[in-house]
């Protein structure tokens, strides 16, 4: 894999197997993780929840996966991501892709500057073996290790 998602993801922005009661709580976790990594302010978390209130659960773009995000605004400090896996999947009200066990928070200060990050993200999300391992990962360090070095996966499979 050419692009490396780990370089866009601060360890403070990764949470593994945390508990969320509902989709609002799940987005709040992803928002808090963005704030912890210095990507956004708390305002952005409220904007992400408002986006789903207004437009529906369209952010659940694949089975079990929600990309929580809002639009570029002053609450975005830089382009970045957060990564939250849930202990128990929660429903977002999506007809086909519920329940959600991975919430990725995404923020960008404009429409263009984050395209490399999106390429890297797409690369990870298209890799179903890697995704299974990432969802199983029990610590932020393990998530980042897998992201920065996907070869670990093959070594694991062979051992």
């Amino acid at each position: 894999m050419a692009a490396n998602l780990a370089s866009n993801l601060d360890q403070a922005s990764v949470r593994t197997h945390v508990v969320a009661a509902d989709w609002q709580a799940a987005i709040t976790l992803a928002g808090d993780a963005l704030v912890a990594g210095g990507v956004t302010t708390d305002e952005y978390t409220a904007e992400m929840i408002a986006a789903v209130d207004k437009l529906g659960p369209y952010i659940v773009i694949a089975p079990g996966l929600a990309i929580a995000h809002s639009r570029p605004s002053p609450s975005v400090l830089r382009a970045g991501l957060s990564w939250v896996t849930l202990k128990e999947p929660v429903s977002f009200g999506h007809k086909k892709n519920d329940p959600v066990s991975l919430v990725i928070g995404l923020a960008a200060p404009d429409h263009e500057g984050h395209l490399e990050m999106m390429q890297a993200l797409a690369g990870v999300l298209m890799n179903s073996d890697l995704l299974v391992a990432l969802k199983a990962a029990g610590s932020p360090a393990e998530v980042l290790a897998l992201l920065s070095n996907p070869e670990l996966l093959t070594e694991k499979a062979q051992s």
Partner: protein
Amino acid sequence: MKIIAVCGMGIGTSVLLKMNTEKVLRTLGIDADVEAADIGVARGMARDAEIVLTSEELAEEIGDVEAQVIVIDNFFDLDEITEKLTSALE
């Protein structure tokens, strides 16, 4: 040919959908211009596009446009995108 990938905000899911649509078009050997757009500008942009790709929730928001609106359930399922694009282009 112009194709628009639509999401609510224009920075996240539409960008992912655009990337995967371009991948599918390359495999199919179809020459098309794919643009990502947010729901606010999508209706205007749809005027000179042939196809609009989006999720089910947003397809309802887009409403009546001349372009064919295709609903994609799984943005990472290249087979689904391939199948729906192919049948739309027939």
